[in-house]
């Protein structure tokens, strides 16, 4: 009772019981960089990890398969034609007695190389032009967007047929024909992203600090668009593989003796009635590759989106 009756307090009556000094500013969590955080969230997505494993296996098989099987993909042996899959010929042989496993590996190299080459080319052109349009805006933006609309309005199959007449049917012509229309999508996407980013205060802050446009692009705009670009890269590789397969299937793509998964599918469909396994393997590889890229892309979308951070 007596203790409570004291109503006037002096500063001596109090003592500090809480925290003192800078402890409040301490962060106990270890520092994580952006990319390690992305990897952590990517790993959390089981399906994407499965996709990544499938992709690694496919790539390993395509790279080292011919060495393991020890056969030549062009070697013709009429005594060995249309053999069903067995211990020696893992995927069987075709009607000219060639080992399908080795051919699928070689075809995969071409398919994947074309997929990556097209993606790289279309992303370099697309991000450069999209970035310029988005950053400069105004007349430059209007002009580039009209160009993109015009290119986008030409059916790409028509373009490819014309180009294959002009340039001949080489791998270069194929990459050229597929990228000439595909970069427009990238350009649109990068333009939108850059336009959104350049309104952000950190770009204004850099300008206020005296940063040159080149510095703003390299240090601020590009690193911030990288996430969305990577997601789209992983999603566009399979679409190029798909297009290549389709073009090879209808005879506009890779020409013999070179081969690709699409070309193999086209060749082996003639034997579908008698030896369905011949068509099955190249198709399986296309499906596995495309599926794995999609799964990875899906996981990356979530992992790279800062709004979905947990």
């Amino acid at each position: 009772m007596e203790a409570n009756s004291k109503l006037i307090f002096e500063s001596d009556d109090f003592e500090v019981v809480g925290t003192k000094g800078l402890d409040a500013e301490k962060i106990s969590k270890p520092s994580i960089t952006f990319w390690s955080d992305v990897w952590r969230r990517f790993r959390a997505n089981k399906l994407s990890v499965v996709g990544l494993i499938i992709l690694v296996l496919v790539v390993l098989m395509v790279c080292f398969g011919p060495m393991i099987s020890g056969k030549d993909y062009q070697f013709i042996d009429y005594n060995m034609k249309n053999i069903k899959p067995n211990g020696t010929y893992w995927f069987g042989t075709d009607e000219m007695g060639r080992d399908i496993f080795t051919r699928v590996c070689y075809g995969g190299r071409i398919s994947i190389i074309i997929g990556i080459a097209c993606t790289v080319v279309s992303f370099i052109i697309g991000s450069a032009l999209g970035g310029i349009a988005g950053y400069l805006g105004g007349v430059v933006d209007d002009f580039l967007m009209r160009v993109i609309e015009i290119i986008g309005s030409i059916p790409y199959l028509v373009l490819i047929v014309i180009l294959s007449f002009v340039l001949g049917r080489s791998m270069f012509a194929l990459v050229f024909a597929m990228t000439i229309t595909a970069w427009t999508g990238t350009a649109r996407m990068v333009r939108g992203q850059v336009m959104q980013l350049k309104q952000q205060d950190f770009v204004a802050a850099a300008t206020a600090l005296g940063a040159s446009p080149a510095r703003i692009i390299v240090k601020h705009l590009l690193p911030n668009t990288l996430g969305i670009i990577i997601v789209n890269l992983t999603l566009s590789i399979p679409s190029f593989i798909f297009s290549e397969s389709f073009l090879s299937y209808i005879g506009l793509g890779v020409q013999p003796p070179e081969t690709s998964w699409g070309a193999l599918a086209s060749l082996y469909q003639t034997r579908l009635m008698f030896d369905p396994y011949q068509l099955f393997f190249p198709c399986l590889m296309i499906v596995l590759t495309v599926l794995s890229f999609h799964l990875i892309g899906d996981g990356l979308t979530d992992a790279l989106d800062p709004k979905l951070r947990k």
Partner: protein
Amino acid sequence: MSEKKVLVEVKDLKKHFKVGKNAILKAVDGISFQIYKGETLGIVGESGCGKTTCGKTVMGLYPATSGDIIFDGIKVNELKGKEKKDFTRKAQIIFQDPYSSLDPRMTVGDIIGEGIDIHGLYTGQARTDKIYELLRTINMTSEHANRFPHEFSGGQRQRIGIARALAIEPEFIVCDEPISALDVSIQAQIINLLIRLQKERGLTYMFIAHDLSMVKHISDRVGVMYLGKMVEMAPSYELYTNPKHPYTEALMSSIPIPDPETEREKKRINIEGEIPSPINPKPGCRFASRCRYATDRCRQETPEFREVGPEHFAACHRIGEE
């Protein structure tokens, strides 16, 4: 009073945005003021009155439509190249939104060091030391330098923004509503930091805000903006006790008083209606449509921004009439 050195002088500054065919948004429409070295000029006004545009135009982030900005005797609004870069060393800005003002892909150390890198002030170990020193200035520790902005709270981010502005040792800082995105306990922290830095480094501030009590606390002089125009400017005590312009009068009566009895007794002047659109504004006094004293003269003639008392400027026909 006349001994004060003018650091920044803004003369008849206009910033118009074209928003469509025959539609011009007059965000800042002919304002003039001076900022003395070492003082804090507060700019207040309701949302959309052009405070931020005014601050960013002074900084050169928006090109001015017309008018002059004179910094330390040099006309800065038409500078190019190297001279412009030199100006950026002397004047800096702190942004309103601490979330969009820091690049999410850069570490705090790199964000703070950006100005140092651009102007090539320090390299190597000296740069690191300088960044650590700046972190200590804003009550953070060197271990924060390798972290990313997303690991910090709003108040911490705002302090990082302040450190970035301080890194190149400017003389003048535009504070564009640096506290409006923060909660009250953090606001005091930021304000006290700004006041401390001003004392230590003799900084000059242009402090843009809509929190009237906070502006009174930090500013030496306060300017009130309404729809792209400066309507009144006076030393802060004078403005808060003796407002001349009807808009300022109404604004001041809206400040809550931390005493329930006085607050209950207080007469509040309510302003009717909404703020008119700044797109193609009508001639005459901008405030006429909402002013309770408005006459025909107010609707036709634009009032001049004139001296109505010592250091006290206002733009209203009524003053001195009765």
